[in-house]
């Protein structure tokens, strides 16, 4: 139990991940679902990025030639999260474009109504 307070960043990340996961699963409004997805992704990247942090070390930009490992944190997780942030922006743009297209056709943002309406219409 104490470990939860030592890794407090990871606890926060897990709580936000679950809230985002539920908003995405539970909500009927499309834009709410997309915001829930963004929360989920941001939480996973916080969970990944705080793996690389080491107490008392600086950001991995070499200052005046000091190249010992004790001076800098682990650069691998921040490299991975940089890739991840751009992935979640691209997916959000795709989802929002789909929402607009659906709104053109069904004039509602509620996914349940959209499913009911799309079943009624014959293509």
């Amino acid at each position, binding site marked *: 139990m104490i470990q939860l307070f030592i890794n407090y960043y990871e606890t926060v990340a897990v709580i936000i*991940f679950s809230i985002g*996961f539920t908003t*995405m*699963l539970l909500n009927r409004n*499309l834009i709410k*679902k997309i915001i829930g*997805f963004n929360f*989920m*992704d941001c939480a*996973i990247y916080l*969970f*990944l990025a705080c*793996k690389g942090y080491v107490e008392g070390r600086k950001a991995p930009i070499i200052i005046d030639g000091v190249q010992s490992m004790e001076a800098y944190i682990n650069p*691998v*997780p921040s490299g*991975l999260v940089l*890739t*991840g942030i751009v*992935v979640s922006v*691209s*997916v959000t743009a*795709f*989802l929002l474009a*789909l*929402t607009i*297209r*659906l709104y053109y*056709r*069904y004039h509602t943002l509620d*996914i349940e109504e*959209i*499913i009911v*309406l*799309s079943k009624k*219409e014959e*293509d």
Partner: protein
Amino acid sequence: MNLVQNFPFLSIILTLSGGVVCSVLKGSNARKYCYFVLTSVLVGSLLTMAYVLSTGESYVYMMGHFPAPWGNEIRVGVLETIMASLFSGIMLLSLMGGMHHIFEDTEDTKSNLYFTLVSLLSASLLALVYTNDLFTGYVFVEINTIASCALVMIRYRSGKALVATVRYLFMSLLGSGLFLIGITILYDITGHLLMENIAQSVSVLFQTGTYAFPLSVVVVLFSMGLAIKSACFPFHTWLPGAHGNATVSSSSILSGLVLKGYIFLLIKIFYRVIGMNIIFHERATNVLFIFGVFAMIIGSIKAIQEKDLKRMLAYSSVAQIGYIFLGIGLGTEAGIAAACLHIIVHAITKPMLFTACGGFMDVSGGSKKFSDIQGAGLRDKLSGIAFIVGAMSMIGIPFFAGFISKVYLTTAAIEYSSIKTVVALAALAISTLLNACYYIPAMLVLFTHPKTEKVHTHPRSKEMSLSLYIFIGLNFLMGCFSQPIVNAVIQGIAMFR
């Protein structure tokens, strides 16, 4: 380092840049360029397969100047090259099969963008097959997700396709979210992203028993994430909508190849990263085994109730995915070999069925309801024959491809002496019966008392006939002379470690 060893890397780069080039060309030039890219990738992977079979062991290709744990790396073995040539070949054939549908469904200013999506999808499939690094796997899983959702959404004029895309995309994003959390926890407890190094530290962790609970949660997250993405039983609700409403070539690419890419990544993670003994200990294989059994039964039952040919084929894909998960669920090497064999068989048969269904839609005024395609098999003879061959192979009649993988699934199940064997054999028998229960009525509808009045028929293009001939030939080849392929798969699995 002879030249052939560079082909896997060059094929990934060619397909990636092919996507970019297609976005600039006109519709018809993009089609020619896409054909060129896919044929060169097919020839390249066949040559690499010959090379790897001759040397008898897999080699590692270093991407960049820095060796493995620092830089990226792809690993090329027999199984990988078989899958790569299968994926590029089938993608080429399904594109040829549904070509005039593509140009009908998309605007003429946007049809070249369809070929961008197809070549980027084949790039991500190749990268998923070859990669030896988990995070590279995640990046290309994302490309795969967006490309396959865009393939379904290309028919955005029909509202059903849009709704199916939204549901498919949300479920797929849940899957890749769980997959990424699995990678993070694994990176945290082992410190590596490369598959070999993770395997070593995981086996050490397993012996000493440290981080036992996180390790089992990682196994659960990987299997759940990739099961959601490959439409395994409880998470298959998005599949009938997505595959039922996409264009002909999109649905054959999606059900034939995209689902298999994720399953192959799951096999790689289970077999090479975590190791089968730990998976066995975690009893993850039992869970997948039960999912497979349920998928086989309930997928077929749902397919029987369908009134729409394409949705019926989509539900039968859910059942066939259940066969593959049954193979993985057995947990033995023979089980995984049977699963790989069924991946090959299903990749050959299902796109043929979807292309034939495209042919039936052409001759019956574009509708896919059973009531409208009454007797379409007689109006379009070649699609009818292709549908018969596909249905026979799905049911598992000897001399057709499906029979081979069913035989190996049963031998793998028999080898395994416990309750699992009984359940596996019962499931195989029942689902073969259920397959017959929906393919034979479909064939009856297609080949009896055709409608008399002249329905607007679309002259079948040469490309489609060629692709159907090749599909039928492949099916018979796999059905009758399957021994070399089976030996290659078994040798690949042995070399896979």
